[in-house]
């Protein structure tokens, strides 16, 4: 299935920067009201959580690096519903949304951002290192490309143990494609026939370096031909397109026990981190992409299709806000691990 992703509309594949993304609409009615509202709710939960994180950063409650996913929510919201509890998830340092939608509680995520011991990594990881054993969420990896060999190894373990049916989903940005770890991992995954779905979140910028300024070949899927890995690419701003593409790709991975590379074209609306003055891109470009925002375009589409009313939206949004309020309260009420426990968990007790 090189080059296209059956299950999406034919037009859903092959989206390129500069093309009008909205023409690759996928019919929401085919997915049903309940499903669509759940995806919208997922995106709203991530969006509202992160908007509050940015505010809390300004207040000094959250420190360190904070990389917001705002604008890219359709990717995690589209992929995650396709996963089973048995599956592994490996993500990057821009992983708040992935953690939340994999099932890590917003309370534990927010407490982690605060550095409280009630956080999902006991306050040892922070924003970039969310981990959760219960949901097989393997981070939270802040070395670009660092999660790729890990994903290969997790899938190798699943193959050898074996854990039949389990797949590993590895999220990474397009910047990781320049790393040696990417190429070594693709080769190993294909050579050893490992069940990994590699999800490339192509937001066009590796921190501040545009893809076209860092890659000799900007059609990333072409690189996979050299590894014999099937690929698909789809509009990452359309949650249903992402969902359908990921569903199809995962079905292939589960069936073939071979890797698949899925590229999702998306865009980061906010700065790379809270320290980024965004000197490398035009405001007009950001504004243009915002018109394709995954939440409002989906909202409009659902309303137009008669699947949702404004009251429905308000209800979902209020629920997301309430969850955020509760998470902040939980984090505020959280406790600081005594510094005397500093040496804990460096090695096993």
């Amino acid at each position: 299935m090189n080059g296209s992703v059956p299950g999406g509309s034919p037009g859903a594949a092959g989206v390129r920067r500069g093309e009008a993304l909205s023409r690759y609409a996928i019919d929401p009615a085919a997915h049903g009201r309940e499903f669509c509202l759940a995806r919208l709710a997922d995106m709203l939960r991530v969006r509202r959580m992160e908007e509050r994180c940015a505010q809390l950063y300004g207040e000094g409650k959250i420190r360190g690096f904070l990389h917001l996913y705002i604008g890219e929510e359709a990717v995690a919201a589209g992929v995650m519903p396709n996963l089973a509890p048995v599956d592994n998830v490996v993500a990057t340092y821009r992983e708040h949304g992935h953690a939340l939608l994999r099932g890590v509680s917003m309370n534990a995520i927010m407490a982690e951002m605060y550095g409280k011991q009630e956080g999902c990594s006991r306050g040892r990881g922070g924003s970039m290192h969310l981990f959760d054993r219960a949901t097989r969420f393997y981070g939270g990896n802040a070395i670009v490309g660092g999660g790729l060999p890990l994903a290969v190894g997790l899938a190798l373990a699943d193959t050898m143990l074996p854990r039949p049916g389990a797949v590993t989903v590895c999220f990474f940005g397009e910047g990781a494609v320049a790393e040696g770890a990417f190429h070594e991992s693709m080769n190993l995954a294909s050579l050893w026939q490992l069940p990994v779905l590699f999800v490339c979140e192509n937001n066009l910028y590796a921190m501040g370096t545009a893809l076209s300024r860092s890659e000799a070949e900007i059609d990333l899927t072409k690189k996979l031909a050299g590894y014999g890995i099937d690929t698909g690419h789809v509009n990452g701003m359309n949650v249903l397109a992402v969902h359908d593409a990921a569903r199809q790709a995962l079905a292939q991975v589960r069936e073939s026990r071979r890797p698949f590379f899925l590229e999702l074209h998306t865009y980061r609306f906010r700065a790379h981190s809270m320290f980024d003055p965004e000197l490398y891109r035009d405001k007009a470009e950001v504004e243009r992409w915002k018109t394709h925002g995954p939440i409002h375009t989906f909202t409009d589409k659902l309303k137009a299709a008669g699947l949702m009313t404004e009251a429905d939206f308000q209800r979902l949004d209020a629920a997301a806000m309430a969850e955020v309020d509760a998470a902040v309260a939980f984090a505020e009420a959280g406790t600081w691990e005594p510094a005397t426990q500093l040496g804990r968990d460096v090695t096993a007790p």
Partner: protein
Amino acid sequence: MPATSYREALRAAHREALQRDARVFVMGEDVGRYGGSYAVTKGLLEEFGEARVRDTPLSELGFVGAGIGAAMGGMRPIVEVMTVNFSLLALDAIVNTAAALRHMSGGQFGVPVVIRMATGAGRQLAAQHSHSLEVWYAHVPGLKVLAPATLADARGMLWPALQDPDPVLIFEHAQLYNLEGDLPDPAPVVDISRAAVRRAGDDVTIVTYGGSLPRALAAAGTLAEQGIAAEVIDLRVLRPLDMATVLASVRKTHRVLVVDEGWRTGSLAGEVMARVAEEAFYDLDAPPARVCSEEVPIPYAKHMEEAALPLPPKIVAAARALRQSA
């Protein structure tokens, strides 16, 4: 006691691990069909099959990282890297991921991987195959670093390393592979937490490890002929250091010489000396001393390579100077 070699002892340890635990597998460059670049894994492919004796491409970052992932996923991988020089291509996976993961995940995920590699000089392999960089790893919290210097340790360290819930690195000095001797059958169980006194003496403590142990023991023999009784301590575990054994000896001999094939600057020798100075300063009759590699990339020409290494004549001279000072 059957005669064996360091290489064969390592191989027997691998065979035992593969037999005892279905989660154990070996992977690395040329561990299978080639039989291992130092022939440690020779014959294991035929015995255990391609899945468990797994040849890898020349992708140190990829396959060491995959070993780390497989360990997190429930396997017990033994990853062989040809030499410590090549392991630098995997430094990211070892230091940024394996060592940090338990702590940065708040204790949720451990990485029970064993990573073995050859280290050290002495075979005229020049500056990209000869260095002793184990101290780089010994610097890092979250790792355990072992240096088997005897047949018993070559045979016995692997199994307990595999039982460790955290990443363990095993450094095998390339000049030890042909070391021959007797090993009891069944092989003795060894611990991987303590240093060992390899030769007793009252006049000076020589602390060393790995490929420098035979050199230190040879030097101790020479010193004995000259009336100086050297106590030789094999660190065995480079992280965490067993300073209790070292300090007990220093409090007896009041003089300490550290022999380390790493370069002097930032060396493990420096760490041992600092700890002795911190914890047993008033027990010392002379300043701590060390013999390390000269600060040059290891050269090819035999006489030049020998000039760079901490060989027995240098150890003897340093011990004599130490004995005569203060």
